[in-house]
């Protein structure tokens, strides 16, 4: 039964095992802690490395190949909040602003989940379009903007204009650190092309998988510390955090096939659609929708969806893609 094997292969990879180790450290109340500056440093490294690699790949492949699936990815990201918002609002009985905030997170993407997926594909020797990073880059912002607009429409009366200005949201969604690093490195990589890659490959590519393993140890710690918040968010959000990714994952894979991506590329688009942002979206939402309760969207994306995708989601979306492409 292929899904089972796919999952098993994933669970025994260093990255996932180190993530589990981090979870255990948090649950056993070990005093193990990564300094915040180490977390930030690793984030910067991963975003710059993946962005640069993707840019070089676009340079190799040519924009002609990239624009269509990229457009599809962008559209998908922008659309997701349109059904997750009403679902949360009326199905989950969430306040409008919270529903909008959560919707923004699930329309946006998680770079680390994407990176873990590329490593998984490498491990199972499944080729994929290296320029897929471009999809990651274009999917991060749109959903955030859509979500903020939805939230504004619902909270248009309340005061404190200085904080609820849409402008801030747009700026944060376009120049926030994670998006800026990713898109910036992508452009740098695109301008340098292969000659530039030859210079920096030993730093940005060769040790990449090991760095990811170390980073996932930290992410396990971070997610583990949030597990107690699961009680606070209620059963609906719990189910939402697992079911929606499965749904969006299939949708993403299907979009990938429609736009002519390979089996690997479609899997990655599925992973992106299924993933929920926990860096870009929280920062932008906190600034532009301060009335939304962070416990909801952070717990959902960080403590539910992220671990689910890392452990089970990725191989599942891959199996789905295999089914679809066979």
């Amino acid at each position: 039964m292929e899904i089972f094997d796919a999952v098993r292969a994933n669970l025994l990879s260093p990255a996932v095992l180190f993530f589990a180790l981090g979870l255990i450290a948090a649950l056993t109340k070990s005093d193990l802690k990564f300094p915040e500056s180490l977390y930030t440093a690793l984030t910067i490294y991963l975003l710059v490395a993946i962005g640069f690699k993707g840019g070089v790949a676009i340079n190799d492949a040519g924009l002609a190949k990239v624009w269509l699936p990229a457009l599809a990815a962008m559209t998908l990201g922008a659309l997701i909040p349109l059904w997750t918002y009403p679902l949360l609002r009326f199905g989950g009985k969430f306040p409008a602003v919270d529903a909008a905030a959560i919707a923004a997170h699930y329309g946006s993407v998680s770079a680390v989940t994407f990176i873990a997926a590329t490593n998984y594909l490498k491990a199972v020797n499944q080729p994929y379009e290296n320029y897929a990073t471009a999809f990651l880059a274009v999917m991060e912002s749109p959903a955030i903007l859509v979500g903020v607009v939805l939230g504004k429409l619902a909270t248009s009366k309340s005061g404190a204009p200085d904080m609820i200005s849409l402008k801030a949201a747009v700026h944060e969604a376009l120049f926030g650190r994670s998006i800026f690093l990713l898109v910036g490195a992508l452009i740098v990589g695109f301008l340098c092309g292969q000659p530039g890659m030859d210079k920096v490959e030993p730093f940005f590519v060769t040790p990449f998988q090991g760095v990811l393993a170390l980073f996932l140890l930290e992410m396990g710690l971070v997610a583990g510390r949030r597990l107690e918040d699961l009680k606070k968010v209620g059963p609906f959000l719990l189910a939402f955090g697992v079911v929606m990714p499965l749904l969006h994952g299939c949708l993403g894979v299907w979009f990938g096939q429609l736009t002519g991506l390979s089996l690997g590329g479609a899997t990655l688009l599925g992973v992106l659609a299924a993933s929920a942002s926990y860096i870009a979206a929280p920062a932008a939402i906190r600034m532009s929708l301060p009335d939304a309760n962070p416990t909801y969207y952070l717990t959902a994306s960080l403590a539910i969806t992220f671990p689910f995708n890392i452990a089970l989601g990725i191989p599942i979306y891959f199996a789905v893609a295999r089914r679809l492409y066979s």
Partner: protein
Amino acid sequence: MNTHPMKLVTIVCEAHARDAVTKLLRDAGAHGWTLFAVEGDGSQGKRPADIPEFANVQIEVIVKPEVAEHLLERLGTEFFPRYGMIAFESDVRVIRAAKF
């Protein structure tokens, strides 16, 4: 050295509120501020500062009494409903009152 009475307003709030608060300080008429990252625990739960989303900052600002009054006023009405935070004032004596 003759010292001059001033108010020290201390704010501890989540890191994401940082820009909104410092903007408020300027609007309220502060001429400067000091800021640093802190961990914390409170009614909204632990802030272990493991990632920016769960980090706090402590902001210290020295202002004239009337500015402090106005500052706390706005913090209480605009910020407290939205952010996990505390704010308090205390009496200090500065040198070079002109700076504040």
